């Protein structure tokens, strides 16, 4: 088992693509500027967690597949509604106004119940680009966007995007001219945030479903922008 243990990260990452699932794979895009393991060795709790999982696997009490399945169930508990909400805002100006005025009420219209979460939707324009972070922990609108991506929780992203947002955005492939104001939102207390990207040119007449297909989770956090 020593080889397996030694190779733990590599094994997990290659296994990851073997199973059947439909969440997007933005975590694996290169270059990935802010992953969990880019700040040196893993933390104490991460090591304990991995050690515990390995022990349980070795003793035959759980399997890696069960852990992966459980993580997918987490995703299902927090279904991803963000793309449908933004696509509706693109085709229905009145809905967009309601979304910007009171995000939770507007999402409820579409059947996305955010429970206690207060949602602030912020709109990208030719003048302003919005990006979301939680520097204190990793607050995230799970009821709307599902589980947060690993990079969103990384210390690298959380610490850097507040003071050098343009450098971080560039690492995600998003370069903005100085004439565009970068507006960073630190999601540090009771509000949760959703970025409404600009609808790309060339999508005139598209259906809501087709428009929603353009929208990845990363765009709704504000680190990338939709393109046709």
């Amino acid at each position: 088992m020593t080889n397996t243990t030694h190779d733990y990260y590599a094994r997990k990452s290659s296994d990851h693509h073997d199973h059947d699932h439909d969440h997007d794979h933005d975590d694996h895009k290169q270059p990935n500027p802010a992953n969990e393991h880019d700040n040196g060795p893993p933390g104490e709790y991460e090591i304990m967690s991995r050690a515990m999982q390995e022990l349980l696997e070795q003793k035959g009490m759980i399997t890696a597949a069960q852990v992966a399945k459980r993580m997918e169930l987490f995703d299902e508990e927090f279904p991803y509604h963000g793309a449908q909400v933004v696509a509706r805002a693109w085709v229905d100006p009145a809905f967009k106004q309601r979304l910007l005025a009171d995000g939770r009420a507007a999402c409820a219209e579409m059947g996305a119940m955010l429970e206690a979460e207060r949602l602030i939707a912020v709109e990208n324009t030719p003048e302003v680009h919005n990006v979301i972070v939680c520097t204190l922990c990793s607050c995230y609108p799970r009821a709307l966007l599902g589980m947060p991506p690993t990079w969103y929780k990384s210390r690298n992203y959380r610490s850097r995007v507040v003071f050098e947002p343009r450098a971080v955005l560039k690492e995600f492939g998003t370069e903005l001219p100085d004439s565009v104001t970068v507006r960073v939102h630190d999601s540090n207390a009771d509000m949760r945030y959703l970025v409404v990207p600009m609808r790309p040119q060339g999508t005139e007449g598209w259906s809501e479903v087709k428009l929603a297909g353009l929208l990845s989770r990363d765009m709704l956090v504000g680190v990338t922008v939709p393109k046709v």
Partner: protein
Amino acid sequence: MSSSASLKSTYTPAPVHRYRVGDKVTVKRTFPPGHRRTPQYIRGKQGVVERICGTYPNPEELAYGFDGLPAKVLYRVRFLQTHVWPGYAGPANDIIEMEIFEHWLEPAAT
């Protein structure tokens, strides 16, 4: 899809609040122990009230099992990045916004 008229706003009213949208405020520069939702990097910085979010139970009390009442008024405050970070590399128009509870704010000197 239901009509918007039937939907009640989810924002919590804050009928009594010390600051209004547009007011200049300074975040207190204090470092008390305990659970605080005011990031260290923003303490002592001056900004402008962007919106009033409503009233929320005080997280500094909730964190220790208290009920957090009376609820505190929560604001969103907008800061210029060049003010928050000396040596900020981006243009002067870049901004950062975050949520600050009323008891962490005082009127800006200017």
